[in-house]
């Protein structure tokens, strides 16, 4: 393998590992604020018990997010020096604002949030919780501005091959930014909803009848019931936006080779890029035309219009199906659970058992979605401006292979430790909830 491919795999490995933790902390920060406010208002211990447990999950996720985020800031220089040389005038300020406005806000107030409950007044602790939530969200905002600009660049001019900003407003509010940001923030909400619901269901099935677990279970289900259908709508709008700006990506997502009307929606197929056709298709006639053009006869662009300039088809095609499949399962479980709760029935065992395997479904769906959009941008790094091949650095392939191996081993170990620790914390928390000596917290 050459330096380009190895560097791409390494970037993918680093960012895939990194995203697992922000996707939890972004939404979990707001959920913790919600728990804290409910406790402040009602004084009921179940809210602060839920807060105490989930703030530990937040701390662990936050630490992993911070350390893997540092790797990201070095990656640009070590492996992709061409990126900053060519579009640094635009990427630079966006990354700088991310670090300045967001990173520090979280990094400092997170200490007060995690360790300061008994050292600072209650209002300051609540404020720290709010600022951490704002910080993680702002962080996501700036990163998604830059990422969206790489997909739909505007507001700049090229002088001697180097991009110079001409209109910052146009750069920040580039065409795909609102859709991508909304899609990602909801993805974070769904990841946390199913993490909470899945872990609480697991604890309930193991006999934990505590009020805090029942509360998080309900919070998770309600959140899923609201966000999962919303995500369907937002995802559809995002897809239409992509069709307008990056038609080759949509053609790969749909596995559509020829530009034509009445394009079927492929439920399953094996795209064959050498023969430029699909095998073993299972399809809904005209489905893709209806979704993308809201008309059975709607003409959808095909990959053969972009020969040599479209992304690899199979990974985009499969990742898209994985994401949508998980999204549909989330809608079913979210709405189903809300209906069961509304009927005031105790949640049945089969439903709880269905939630458990979905605990980390948000992670898988998020990664699948990112693979669709990022692999879908290939061969471009900045769409229409800079290719990945032009940006890669002069590092020997052997060095990249060495560091890639190191990262993969490190990440496999850390991911195992993370998941094991989550369940260990949950077991310990359930054990404490059962013991009669649990101290009763007082609202301040």
């Amino acid at each position, binding site marked *: 393998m050459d330096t380009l491919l190895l560097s791409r795999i390494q970037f993918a490995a680093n960012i895939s590992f990194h995203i697992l933790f922000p996707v939890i902390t972004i939404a979990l920060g707001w959920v913790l604020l919600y728990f804290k406010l409910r406790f402040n208002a009602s004084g009921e211990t179940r809210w602060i018990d839920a807060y105490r447990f989930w703030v530990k999950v937040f701390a662990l996720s936050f630490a992993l997010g911070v350390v*893997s*985020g540092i790797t990201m800031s070095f990656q640009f220089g*070590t492996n992709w020096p061409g990126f900053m040389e060519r579009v*640094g005038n635009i990427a630079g300020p966006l990354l700088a604002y991310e670090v300045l406005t967001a990173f520090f806000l979280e990094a400092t107030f997170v200490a007060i949030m995690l*360790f300061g409950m008994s050292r600072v007044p209650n209002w300051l602790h609540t404020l720290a919780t709010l600022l951490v939530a704002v910080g993680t969200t702002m962080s996501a905002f700036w990163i998604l501005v830059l990422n969206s600009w790489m997909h739909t660049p505007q507001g700049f001019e090229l002088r001697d091959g180097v991009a110079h*900003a001409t209109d910052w407003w146009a750069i920040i509010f580039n065409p795909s930014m609102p859709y991508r940001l909304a899609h990602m923030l909801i993805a974070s909400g769904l990841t946390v909803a199913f993490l909470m619901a899945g872990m609480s269901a697991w604890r309930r099935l193991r006999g934990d009848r505590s009020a805090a677990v029942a509360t998080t279970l309900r919070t998770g289900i309600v959140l899923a019931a609201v966000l999962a259908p919303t995500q369907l709508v937002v995802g559809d709008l995002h897809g239409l936006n992509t069709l307008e700006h990056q038609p080759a990506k949509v053609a790969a997502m749909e596995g559509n080779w020829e530009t034509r009307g009445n394009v079927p929606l492929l439920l399953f197929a094996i795209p064959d890029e050498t023969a430029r056709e699909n095998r073993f298709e299972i399809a809904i006639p005209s489905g893709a035309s209806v979704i993308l053009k809201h008309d059975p006869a709607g003409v959808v662009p095909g990959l053969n219009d972009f020969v040599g300039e479209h992304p690899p088809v199979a990974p985009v095609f499969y990742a898209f199906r994985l994401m949508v499949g998980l999204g549909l399962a989330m809608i079913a479980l979210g709405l189903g659970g809300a209906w069961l709760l509304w009927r005031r029935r105790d949640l049945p065992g089969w439903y709880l058992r269905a939630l458990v395997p979905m605990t980390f479904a948000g992670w898988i769906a998020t990664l699948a979605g990112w693979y669709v959009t990022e692999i879908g941008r290939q061969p471009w790094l900045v769409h229409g401006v800079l290719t990945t091949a032009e940006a890669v650095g002069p590092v020997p392939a052997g*060095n990249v292979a060495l560091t890639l191996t*190191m990262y993969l081993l490190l990440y496999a170990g850390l991911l195992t430790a993370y998941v094991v620790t989550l369940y260990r914390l949950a077991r310990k928390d359930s054990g404490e909830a059962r013991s009669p000596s649990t101290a009763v917290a007082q609202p301040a």
Partner: protein
Amino acid sequence: MTPFLPPDLLPLVFAGLMAFSVLLYVVLDGFDLGVGILLRATRDPAERDRMVASIGPFWDANETWLVLGVGLLLVAFPVAHGVILTALYLPVAAMLAGLILRGVAFEFRAKAATAEDKRRWDRLFFVGSLTASLAQGWMLGRYVLGFDTSPAAMAFAALATVGVAIAYAFIGACWLIWRTDGALQSRAIGWARSGLWAVAAGIVAVSIATPLASERIFARWFEFPYVVLLAPLPLATGALILGLAALLRQMPLPRDALHSVPFWGATGLFCLSFAGLAWSFYPYVVPERLTLYDAAAAPESLTLILVGALIVMPVILGYTVLAWLVFGGKAKDLHYH
């Protein structure tokens, strides 16, 4: 955005901001990493817990200064960022692995199920801290001599590698003198005493080696009038070392007097050494190859970043002080709430 500073001043301002971030990082994460290096110098699990607790609320914000320093290099001097980081490819990866291990070990050791498990994370905490410190030292050594690959330059880099790790352990020990008491504090005083002489030897060695290795740096220090104007720098460094040595010999003092002085003294040593290096480099951002002015990004982009930096950096400093006030005093056992 229209530049409101003369365009030729902008690169200098950014070099200043970057230097400030890196200096803060080296002092702040320096003591974190130093405590990590010293962690296995004691076998008592309770003492280890207190050592980790003393840095627990700070390390995260401290590490962020590295992100800001590298971030400023990335955004203000994009060409230099590429040159430096591709030249230092492997040590950067080693440092990142070290920082990752150290960072996650904080969380995992706090949540360990058994004492054996905790010892395992302590080992990784130590390995991570040591790896990151050594890698930073190696990077500094390679950078100072402009990535020269001669045997002498490599020997210099090896010296810097050990020197930085010892300097971090020293400032870590000084931090522990301030933030702990009793038997652990006495131990920390012992660590600081032996560390100080190693640090002094390192400063002398680097001060001799750098001007010898580069004629340009030699001229910057020893030509008139610099040799007179700069004389206070080595003199202050020498006085500070002797003063610290005298103080450490007397410690611990009754009623724990002056317990924070070694830390601030160590910070002073770091600042003086840093000032010396900065003087040697100016105006290069990649020594002997790229000046600040060659490597700077477009003035419009720099102006935009500067506006944000000037608004946000005072705020950051403000709440860094707030966090220090909230978590001041001797380290207690760290609990979530």
